[in-house]
Structure formats: C-alpha cells, structure tokens
C-alpha cells in the first residue's frame, strides 16, 4: 500500500477530487497548507508598511492507495492539477505500513 501525497494549487482541488473519483478513489484527506518551491511570493501593503509574503496557500491531498492503483491515481492528479505555470505542485508517494478501519477493525487492503 502506498500513501500518495499531492501538494496542489487550491483552486484545482475540485478538479482533482473529480478526477480521483473517476479512477475509483473513494476517500481522501485535504489540508490547507502554505509553501513555496520555485514560485515567487507576493507583497502586501498596509498603510505604507510593506510585507513580503513568501508562503503561498496550497492544498495538500492525501490518499491511501493499493499498489496496483498508484500509477492511475498519480496520473489523474497530474492531469487535473496541472496549469502549466510555475507552482503547480508536487506528488510524493511513500510506503504505507498499516491501514486500519476504525469502525470495523479491518486491517490492510480491505481497510483502504
């Protein structure tokens, strides 16, 4: 099992969610985060006091996936999250050791 973590532009969230549904993903967790890579920040100005804001709002989507479906999931995210402009984000795929369904106590792939 793998944990697919995608950091994307927030306004792409709905598109990503829909694309994931289409490849059969039934659940995900979304967190609002801040970050930057190569994308530049912006400045804000309040009564003459200028603030440089490095961190940009992003959305982090986490999906627990069976090994045989990782490629489809990653492709779905890339297709739906891409705008072609700097700051589109990244996807990290990490090993998932255990998964438990809290309600039933199921463990492993049947808990995904």
């Amino acid at each position, binding site marked *: 099992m793998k944990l697919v973590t995608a950091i994307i532009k927030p306004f792409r969230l709905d598109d990503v969610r829909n694309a994931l549904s289409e490849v059969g993903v039934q659940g995900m967790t979304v967190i609002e985060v801040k970050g930057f890579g190569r994308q530049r920040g912006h400045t*804000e*100005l*309040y*009564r*003459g*006091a200028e*603030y440089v804001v490095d961190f940009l709002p992003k959305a982090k989507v986490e999906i627990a996936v069976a090994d045989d479906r990782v490629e489809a999931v990653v492709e779905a995210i890339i297709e739906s999250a891409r705008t072609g402009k700097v700051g589109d984000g990244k996807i990290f795929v990490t090993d998932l050791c255990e998964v438990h369904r809290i309600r039933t106590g199921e463990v492993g792939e049947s808990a995904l």
Partner: protein
Amino acid sequence: MFLVLSPAAFAAEGLDTGDTAWMMTSTALVLFMTLPGLALFYSGLVGNRNVLSVMMQCFAIACGASLIWVIAGYSLTFGEGQLFGGLTGGMGKGLLAGVGVDSTSGSIPESVFVMFQMTFAIITPALIVGGFAERIRFSSMLLFSMLWLLVVYVPVAHWVWGGGWLAARGFMDFAGGAVVHINAGVGALVAALIIGNRKGFPTTQMAPHNLPFTVAGAGMLWVGWFGFNGGSALAANGAAGMAILVTHLGAAAGSLAWMSCEWLRFGKPSVLGIVTGMVAGLGTITPASGFVGPGGAIIIGLSAGVVCFFATLLIKQKFKIDDSLDVFPVHGVGGCLGILLTAIFVSKSYGGMGLPEGVSIGHQLGVQALGAVATVAWCGISTFVLLKLVNMIVALRVSADEETEGLDLVLHEERGYDI
C-alpha cells in the same frame, strides 16, 4: 458644540420633543461608534492573537468612563464655578446632584445632555488604545485611561465647551477637533513613545488579521459620526442638518483623497487606505462641522486625506514610531488641520456660517492655533506624567514572552477564534 445664545435659551422652560428625540438618537449613534464601531475597526487591524484584548479595552474603557463621568467628569466639565484655577468647572453637579427627571439643558432634558457628552468622554480615551495596542497590560491601561479622562479630557472639554478660557476667546471647535481628536492623537503618540515599540517593529510582519472587521467598523463610524457632529448642534434644526451634510462630504472627500494618494504612490488603491482616509476626513471636519458649508467641507476632506496620508508615512517610515493604529497622524494631525481650517472656511466668503462681528480670518486663525497648541501641550505633558505615575504602580507593558504569546491568552485566558 457651539452654544448659540438666543431668546429661547433664556426662557429656560419648554422642552422641545424634536430636539430631545434627535439628541437621544445622536447619543445612541455616538455610543455605537465605540461599541462596536471602534472595537471592530481597531481589533481587525491587530494580530489575531490580540483581537479580544482590543475589544476588551474598548468595552472596559466605555464602562469605566461612564462611571467617572457621572461621578465627577460631567460636573468638572460643565458645572458652574471653577476649580484648579480655571482648569475645570466646579463640583456642584458631582454625582449628578440636582440632575433630575425634569432638569433641562437648553431645550433637552439634562439627563440626555449628560449622556450625549458621556459618549464623547468614552470614545476619546478609547481612541488612544491604538497607540499601545498589542503590548499594554490591561490593568495599567484601565488605570491610565481613567486618570487620563479626568486629567486631560475633562479640562480641555471645559476650556472649549464648558465655558472655559478657550471658549471665552472665541475658540471654535464644534464637535471635538481639539477635545477629542487632538487629545486622542497626542495621547496615543506619547504613549507609543513612552511604552515603546512592539517587539520586532518595524522589521517583523504585523499585518492586520481581519480587515473585514475594520471595514465593518469603519462603516459604523461613518454613520455614527452623523450623531457625533449632527448631535453637537444640540437641536433638531438646520444647523444639525448642515453639520451632517458637511460631515458626510468630509468623509467622502477624505476617502477619495487618501485612496488617490495611495494609488499614485504605491500603485494600487486599498480598502484599508480608503477607510483610513474616511476617518481622516471625518476627524478633520469635526471641529468645522457646525461652521462651514459643503464646498468648504469638500476642500477640508480632500486636505485631510492628503495631509494625514503623508503624516502616517512620516511617523511610520521616517520616525519609526510604533503608534500601532496610526492614531496621531490621523486624529492628531487631522484634528489640528481641521481646527485651523475652521478659521478659514467659517468665513462667509468661503461659504461658511460667518465669523463673529469684527473678527477677521487672521484673528480667528490665531485663536484656533492657540487652542490647538494649548491642547497639545496640556495633553502631551499630562499624558507623559500619568504614564510614568501608572508605571510605578503597575507595569505598563507586558513581558516580551507575553507579548509574543498574545494578550488574549495571557491577559484574558481567551482565544478569539476557534477555527
């Protein structure tokens, strides 16, 4: 307010229900400016960990000032006789002695006059909160504010409105350019200098956390100001109507002027800029509101937007004084500007109500300048002394660690937002 002597006033009896109804409404409008107008305006400008502390300060000052006003403030400002060598009125109406259900003040019940004036005594110390936001200790703030009300606000109000020496010289301050705005502005500046800058100022980011609050509060201030200036006519008449009109134009012109300055200087107009320009325009028109015409008001408003804009940059960027919410450049400078411009635009040749018989613009300008300087001097020195005094009893400022954690948690054990 400028007390117009007329035969009706000498006739003494005869409540005017129209005047009374308007003054009751004005009282509510002006209290609304503080609660929640100013509370929202100010709290939106600070960090989210200090949002409650600012609201608490506004609320507590409102409550404390109310009591002090009826115990001593009203009498010392408006009472007959003189105390402290003419600094204040007498204590004949201390604890509102003699003020009953049937007591009158002009054409309105005296209770209404007491309340209306109380709302001014509430908002003036509340404005100072902007000078020491995010680092003041609640206990010392409360002690200082109550003392400041008695030592600074009351005397100046007496000099200008209570038949004191400035009134005797023909000083014109219709609704509080000196009594409220210069006082609050200078008080905040001195407080910012004595208490010191916020930790990390000016290099650390200290952006407003909730500008929607600030804009909502600004709207309440604009509307409430109709009571502030319109109510200072103490009657429901043409003078009040014109005061409201010129007040409104001052706000509109000030807003556009600041917005334009910002647009030209920084490339974008901002909502914080437009509402700050609004406050500058309103503060500057305040002393002139009963004396000038619409044309004069527009010029006054435009001047306020421009002058206060540059004053703010000067204080923040050049002098690097952490008057956190810009009370001095907006209210202090605006108040002085308005006090001086009153002398010009009151003249009939500039569309005003007209100077008194035999008084030239030049002479009136001199009187206005005298009043402004006297207010600045009295307020500046007294505020300094009071701060030093209070600091000996309880430290003015929280510790550096407390300041970092935020006043809401440290002083009030509360959190503003749970999202």
